Structures are given as structure tokens and as C-alpha cells.
């Protein structure tokens, strides 16, 4: 089946089997391997991407054909003009990762959270990320990173609007 999906602003037109999962479409058909596959069963959140800017979805539990005509944002699309997105910078600054495997999913879930809720409490951040598993950090620095990014973005109104589009 022919589909057309906008990923990080680029239109990808591909012919896929209906059973192709979005995560594999991104990795294998689009060559965007920043989206990771962890548990492959919708538990771990490594594969989270943003759909239409306002919804975090586990791309291992959605068919690529369902993304036809939609906009997907992956971790590769976060950077802005060659600079890290404030979320990425905050994960760097706060040491919000060790092995990095869960990081793309953490970033994308956080990205959608900040679009809905630009000033989340610590509890709200922890709840929002409860479907994303990290085996390294113990989550403390991830939460700090999201807090830093929220502060940074709230001082930068245009970026908040972009995150919530």
C-alpha cells in the first residue's frame, strides 16, 4: 500500500505492507534509526515519537499505514538550526542518560508533555514518563532535565508555541 508520511518535515512516499509497524517504517524505510525498539510490545517507551505535534505514540504499536497523511517527529527532528533542542541540551547538562537507549523515547514523550503542559510539576513529569523505562539513571536526572527544559522554553515563548503546535 502506498503511503505518504511527513517525518521531521520531509515527505516520505513508500510502498509498505499494511502490517509494517511505524517503528520499522521509520528505521528501515526512512533510514531514521534514532527511534529505538526496546521491548517491541508497547511496554518500554523507547520507540515513542510525536504524531501531529501533540500526541506521543509508541511506534511499535501502530501501523505505518495509520501514519499516512500525518506528521511524525522523531528525535532526529528535534534539533533546531544545527543546535540541540532545549530538551536535548537539558538531558546533556543534567546527565539525563547513561547508555542512551531509552533517550529518544524520553525526549519525545517529554516534548509532547511540554506542549500540553509547559510548566509541569515534578509529579506530573514522573507520571508523564511512567510509560518510558530507563534502566540506568534511576530517573532523577531525567526529571531534572525536563524541569530545566521547561524553564528554558518558558523563557522563550516562540519555542513553546512550536512545541505545542
Amino acid at each position, binding site marked *: 500500500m502506498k503511503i505518504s508520511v511527513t517525518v521531521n518535515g520531509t515527505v516520505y512516499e513508500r510502498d509498505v505492507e499494511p502490517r509494517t509497524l511505524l517503528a520499522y517504517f521509520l528505521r528501515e524505510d526512512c533510514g531514521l534509526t534514532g527511534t529505538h525498539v526496546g521491548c517491541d*510490545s508497547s511496554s518500554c517507551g523507547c520507540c515513542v515519537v510525536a504524531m501531529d505535534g501533540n500526541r506521543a505514540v509508541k511506534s511499535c504499536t501502530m501501523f505505518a499505514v495509520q501514519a499516512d497523511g500525518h506528521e511524525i517527529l522523531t528525535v532526529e527532528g528535534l534539533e533546531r538550526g544545527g543546535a540541540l533542542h532545549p530538551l536535548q541540551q537539558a538531558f546533556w547538562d543534567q546527565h539525563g542518560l547513561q547508555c542512551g537507549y531509552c533517550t529518544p523515547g524520553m525526549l519525545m514523550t517529554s516534548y509532547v508533555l511540554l506542549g500540553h503542559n509547559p510548566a509541569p510539576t515534578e509529579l506530573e513529569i514522573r507520571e508523564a514518563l511512567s510509560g518510558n523505562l530507563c534502566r540506568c539513571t534511576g530517573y532523577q536526572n531525567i526529571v531534572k532535565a525536563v524541569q530545566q527544559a521547561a524553564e528554558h522554553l518558558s523563557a522563550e515563548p516562540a519555542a513553546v508555541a512550536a512545541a505545542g503546535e
Partner: protein
Amino acid sequence: MFPAPFDYQRAHSAQEAIDALAAHGADARVLAGGQSLIPAMRYRLARPPVLVDINPASELVYFREADGSLQIGAGTRDFAVETAPFVAPRYHLIADASVLIADPVVRQMGTVVGSLCHNDPAGDWPAVALAGRASMVLRSSAGTRVVPIDEFIVDSYTTSLRDGEMAVEVRFPIPGARTSGSYQKIERKVGDFATASAAVQVSLDAAGKIAGAGVAIGAVGPSAMRVVEAEKLLDGNAPSKELIADAARAAEKLADPSPDNRGSVEYKKAMAGVLVRRALTNAFVRLGVGGLT
């Protein structure tokens, strides 16, 4: 870990979905949020030859009060329920459950009606629908019927949905001013299936007596179950610790769980009672009843 091949069809309206279901009969399954169906297909527990995707059918996305009911369309996601400002102050049972389903990312895709149709014995919505006395609106090329949730839930993963028929809506009666509820659940980690769960909804009359009680338990039997004995015990009486304990015992007695790595039969039965007690206590406290804690 990939689903078996299937024929994919898109429905842009309820009618298109029903036409597709009519054409394919038992071969077709509706794809809504897919958060249960797609994993089941990946594990090859489900191999539907035809999937009818209702995500493009925007007319099925609604969450509104009308005709005395809270109406939730088949396209409405859990996230919409959890974030609707009018839910928390008035729909205590639904509000409790809406933040305990799966995890927050899954809730951005998963749908209420889809969960009810999947009817996982450990799912959250079936018990909530029983306690809240919901009805399902089922549509086919033959017409529309409204089925009480008790008749919709048949057995594990089995509902009274017929071939060619689609659940387009679930309806909850709008709770009165002196109605409250609560949902309680034990899970090993966020997103895990419940070890046990309890859903209750109770109303008080002007004299402070219980005028209508819904009590249901989940994950402790082949499907969510209404605890009829507990409802009968509660109805017409004033809430008390003793009454709540009796209702909890009825739930423990009815529970018929399977042992697994979440717990033994004895443990799960005990937890069914504990959760019904907690849920009833919470609901009555929310109604301002004192002396229960």
C-alpha cells in the same frame, strides 16, 4: 513479532466501517487505538484477515453529556477522558480509572470503547462500566441496538458483539449530586495488567441511606464481574464500616482468579475484598460520610 498479513481498509465514517464489516463478516476486526489488538496480533494471538481502521472517522470522536448520559464515541481516546475538565469533579469512578489505565503514552492512543470490545479480564473499563451501569451502542447494517454492559460482557475477550456489528459508543448515566464512586487497582508496575481491581459507584438518598450501588471486580475471574450480593447488601442501608466489610466479603467470595506470577488464588481473592472495601470507603468519604476511616 510481526502480525500476520491482513487486508487494511480505512473507514472515514461509521457507515463506511459498518459497510466494510458487513462485507467481511467474521473475518473483519475494527482497529481503533490498537493498543491491545496490535500486541495481540504481534503475538499471533489474533490474526484477523481484515482490519477496518476507524481512526479517520472523526464523527466517532466525541465525549459529551446528552440525553442524561455521558456518551463516549468509539474514536475517543483515554487521554480525552483524563483531561476533560468536567470529569474529575463529577465522575469520580471514571476519573479515578482514567489515570490508572496502562501508561500515559498508551492512553494517548487507546480508546474506551476499544478496551470494552477487547474485554480483557484484567482490563479497567469493563469493571468501571459494570459499576457505572453503562450501555453499549451497537450498530450494523440491520440497525442500532443498545445493550446493557452486563449483556455485552460475555467471557474472557468475548462480548455479545455480532459479526458485522460495531460498537459505536458507550454511555454512562450521568451521576446525581449525591453519587460518588472510586476505582482501586493493584498493579506490579505502571502499565502492567491489574493483579486485582475494584470499581464502585454509590448514591445516597436524602436520609443518607444508600439508594443504588454498583460494585464490580476485575482481573479475578474470566471477565470483570458484578458483585450482585454486595450491591444487595448495600442498597437501602446506611453506610457503615460493618456494611462495607460485608460487601467486601461478598466480593472476596465471588472472586475466582487464576494463579500466576502476580499472585496466588488466595492472595487475589483477598485483594478483591480489600479493594472493594477501599473503593466503597473512598466513595462514601467523598460523599461526606464520616466515621468510616
